């Protein structure tokens, strides 16, 4: 494709990259593997009342979109189902589904109980061997239809040895009027929930490793302080104040955080043990040091520093030692985000007043451009499985949150109302 050629050309022309220290991480590379074709015939619906509501369609469409989004599965087009006899879960004609090139067949069944609860059962078959692989039942209140579909899709991922993705959430900042508050939504942009209610500016939220707490910066006391909000207890705790305190990231284990603070005059990176409350300063440079981000191993921290004259990406060991520069060319890089497999760093580069997201492969030293000169693209954040990223962009006018696959495909906006930015995807989900 034209875009991909441009990506390579730009990478070669504008940026040259050094070779960082080799590490011992070995990861099975699944990118580029053929996707598994899945057929999803219409659900069997027992209760006539269900047929009238939009619940069956909600579950069906959510499940379909999840699997289509995965890059693991590929949906056999619905139009093709009409060429074979209608699906009958009692006697499945596997040969027919094989003729549609389906490898996996999902049979779904939906009913609503007398007390208005939803029961969704699905069975997964392998078409070639004509055998039942596994099945699950889900129950819940009627308004949890989307969640039930996401859970079902996650079960399929897990069965194929993948990390669950579709029940993961994104925390972000939403602005309507003068309010800028922290919100949480499903990975697909549905079910947004507001979680802070101050009239002051809130920004740069991030998840704890256990997904129960959110760190964010708020100007509510007329200076940018770092707060921690506990989603389940509803309690808010002040974590760091004095100067500006922002850009926090939790360690993968969840015991420590790193963040930027100018509490001692200059923007430096601090590490805080969340159990003991002990703090350690990691950077000691009169230049700006900011945007710290843990490696998935917890042994290293990527960050932005202006010590070389312009903001560039660096990596240091998590005690602050062994600092090495990663970006060598270009004059403006920030917002590093480490991929879950530890092999790639996504970050924002400014070239001639355009902000685009690039991905640097730490192992091959290759760089690829993820977004293509469409508005300002900022704050990349990886999905738990590392196949997708969320970012914010003003390509459509106001800032909205977008998702994109690791190879630049399937760009889609997932927010539309007001202005939405600074997405942070959960690092993992159960």
């Amino acid at each position, binding site marked *: 494709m034209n875009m991909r050629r441009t990506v390579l050309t730009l990478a070669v022309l504008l940026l040259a990259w050094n070779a960082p220290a080799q590490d011992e991480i070995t990861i099975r590379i699944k990118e580029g593997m053929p996707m598994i074709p899945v057929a999803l015939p219409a659900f069997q619906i027992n209760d006539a009342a269900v047929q009238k509501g939009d619940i069956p369609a909600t579950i069906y469409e959510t499940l379909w979109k999840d699997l289509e989004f995965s890059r693991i599965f590929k949906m056999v087009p619905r139009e093709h189902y009409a060429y074979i006899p209608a699906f009958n879960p009692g006697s499945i004609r596997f040969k027919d589904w094989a003729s549609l090139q389906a490898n996996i067949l999902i049979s779904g069944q939906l009913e609503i109980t007398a007390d208005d609860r939803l029961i969704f059962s699905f069975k997964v078959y392998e078409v070639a061997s004509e055998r039942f692989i596994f099945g699950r039942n889900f129950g819940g209140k009627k308004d949890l239809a989307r969640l039930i579909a996401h859970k079902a899709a996650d079960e399929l991922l897990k069965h194929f040895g993948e990390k669950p993705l579709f029940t993961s959430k994104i925390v972000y900042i939403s602005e309507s009027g003068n309010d800028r508050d922290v919100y949480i939504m499903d990975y697909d942009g549905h079910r947004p929930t507001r979680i802070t209610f101050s009239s002051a500016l809130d920004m740069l939220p991030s998840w704890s490793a256990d997904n129960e707490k959110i760190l964010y910066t708020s100007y509510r006391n007329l*200076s*940018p302080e770092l707060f921690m909000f506990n989603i389940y207890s509803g309690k808010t705790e002040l974590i760091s104040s004095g100067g500006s305190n*922002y850009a926090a990231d939790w360690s993968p284990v969840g015991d420590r955080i790193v963040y930027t603070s100018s509490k001692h*005059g200059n*923007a430096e990176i601090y590490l805080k043990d969340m159990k003991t409350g002990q703090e350690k300063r990691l950077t000691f440079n009169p230049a*700006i040091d*900011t945007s710290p981000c843990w490696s998935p191993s917890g042994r290293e921290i990527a960050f932005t520093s202006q010590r070389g004259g312009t903001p560039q990406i660096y990596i240091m060991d998590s005690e602050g030692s062994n600092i090495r520069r990663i970006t060598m060319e270009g004059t403006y890089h*920030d917002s590093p985000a480490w991929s879950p497999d530890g092999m790639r760093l996504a970050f924002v580069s400014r070239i001639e007043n355009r902000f685009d997201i690039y991905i640097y492969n730490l192992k091959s030293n290759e760089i690829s451009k993820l977004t293509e000169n469409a508005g300002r693209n900022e704050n990349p954040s990886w999905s738990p499985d590392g196949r997708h990223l969320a970012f914010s962009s003003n390509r459509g006018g106001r800032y909205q949150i977008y998702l994109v696959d690791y190879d630049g495909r399937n760009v889609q906006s997932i927010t539309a109302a007001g202005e939405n930015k600074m997405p942070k995807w959960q690092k993992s989900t159960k």
Partner: protein
Amino acid sequence: MKKWMLLVVAVSLVLMFSACGKKAAQVAPVQEPVVEKVEEPVAQVEKPVLSEEELFQQKSLEELNRDQILKRINFDFDKYEIRDDMKAILQANANWLLKFASVEVLIEGHCDERGTIEYNIALGEKRAEAARNYLASLGLNAAKVKIISYGKSKPLIPGVDEASYFQNRRAEFVITKK
């Protein structure tokens, strides 16, 4: 306010004269409000010119800030060094702050939109700090000057040209206590 009043008077006078000159015998109701309006500007004109001290005493914090008693300064792209052409403004701000020693001030550092959110917070802070250091070099007690950075979250104007960006790359001096 004053200008508005003068305008009304001017327009009224023109109307009055034209009415008198051309159609003196016509339409009495037009003339009546005109005569009434004339009284207001007389009071305005007689208002004494207030000295700097009197203005300071009279105005609230909000009014002092709204009237920009302390002028804002602008910065170069990506930079936080004080520009030579901004030094006179800082000198004037310092003079005023030295004169009114009870005043406490908050310097807000701001950036244009051509930076990332994270980096701009640090950059805005560097700008505010540079302004504070310059005021301190002119004899001001730095302890009375607080700084804050808003990064790019509070642009002054929405434009996307260099002139707008220049306006947005700024340090503002907000009086927080008289």
